[in-house]
């Protein structure tokens, strides 16, 4: 496999590794992924980097049974839209639970996983996924 996307993965370390987004100091709006310009305030906006708590709830989800190339071994797996505590929604894989265990409003938290590997010779892309919270597991 060719080593495409090495620079683009590297450019997204902050958001992929640390779930870092943007807050506009002018209007207070919070964005993920990070934005260079606040779409609300335009040139009056003052976007600054912001790390999220990593906690959220499942807003909605879908079970992938016919996976894309490179994800065959993971199927069936869950792709969810997570509503973060701070507001923004994040598309991500939900791991450490079976598809049957996922439900809307399920409390989840961020974890660090392999996103994909660029073949045996290429780089390993790491980043965030979400899993059931520690509290949810303790209550189970």
């Amino acid at each position: 496999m060719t080593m495409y996307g090495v620079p683009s993965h590297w450019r997204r370390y902050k958001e992929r590794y640390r779930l870092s987004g943007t807050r506009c100091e002018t209007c207070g709006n919070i964005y993920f992924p990070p934005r260079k310009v606040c779409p609300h305030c335009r040139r009056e906006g003052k976007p600054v980097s912001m790390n999220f708590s990593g906690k959220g709830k499942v807003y909605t989800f879908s079970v992938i049974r016919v996976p894309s190339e490179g994800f065959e071994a993971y199927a069936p797996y869950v792709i969810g839209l997570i509503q973060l505590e701070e507001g923004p929604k994040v598309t991500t894989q939900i791991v450490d639970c079976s598809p049957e265990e996922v439900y809307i409003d399920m409390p989840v938290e961020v974890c660090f996983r392999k996103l994909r590997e660029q073949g045996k010779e290429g780089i390993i892309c790491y980043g965030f996924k979400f899993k059931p919270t520690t509290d949810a597991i303790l209550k189970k």
Partner: protein
Amino acid sequence: MVGIVSYGVYIPRWRIKTEEIAKVWDQDADRFKEGLLVEEKSVPSLDEDTVTLAVEAARNALNRSPEVNAKEIGALYVGSESHPYAVKPTATIVAEAIDATPSLTAADMEFACKAGTAGLQACMGLVKAEYVKYGMAIGADTAQAQPSDALEYTAAAGAAAYIIGRDSVIADIEGTYSTTQDVPDFWRREGEGYPQHGGRFTGEPAYFTQVVNCTRGLMERLGTKPKDYDYAVFHQPNGKFPLRAAQILGFDKEKVMPGLIVTKIGNTYSGASLLGLASVLDQAKQGDRILVTSYGSGAGSDSFSIVVTNLIEEKRDLAPSTEFYINRKEYIDYAHYSKFKRQLRGFVN
């Protein structure tokens, strides 16, 4: 005094039982359970490796010490024998993920199962010399074993991270001592998928010689005796070796059991002695004295004498305990184990 500011652990969710492995190879499960004292072992998910385990443990260590700003970590070492890249340090990815970059030194350590404690000693030196405010040492492994080899019953996955510093320590490290000799008990050549071992040779001339001599060496230097310690943690490739080492050295079994977690999760290699120590810190009280001796094939040992401070109570519950991760488990069969370990021929990703 230099000490442990914080610690954090991580163990993957999946487990395979000794019976399940024995069934595939038509071996006597009871014989292995009695011989190794290992009931089941942890297995990493397809999307987990030494990097992801190390990051999770490091984040738990940071959560347990809110006073530590990750940018103040001046040294980060990851000890493992399963670094995902042959060339590209695991420590760089961990440092980036916990936002400790760019002002720090970082490197990967290798010394079979004792690379994590080697990192701990390097951090102690840098902190004591006041080159860095905090150092982070991580022991993490997703251990490999040839299918049907005896190692397959124990080779497991787990990680433990320790923040070393001078202030707000939960435990003082009052001394450390090491032994090293050239012993060919366990090895893996470059490019080979699985390690080789010297069978029975791994016991007396390797593990026991290093662990016993190193522990005695530390106690001689500190003027301590086994009765001075409330807990003892020895590297745990299986359940029998650390109990036998304790017996030779004169430590009561009761002092070893709180840190003996190999029976439930298997041998986590570079994580093993550090996870055992974490399990003890999860329950120790102020003033308790802990002896830790790691072992790395090749071969060598690092011993530490540790005294718990009053801050342990404040910080302990700020991150999940070792017991939480031990109990958070889901069993898989050998077919899924083979898939998770990428042992299937023609496996594409």
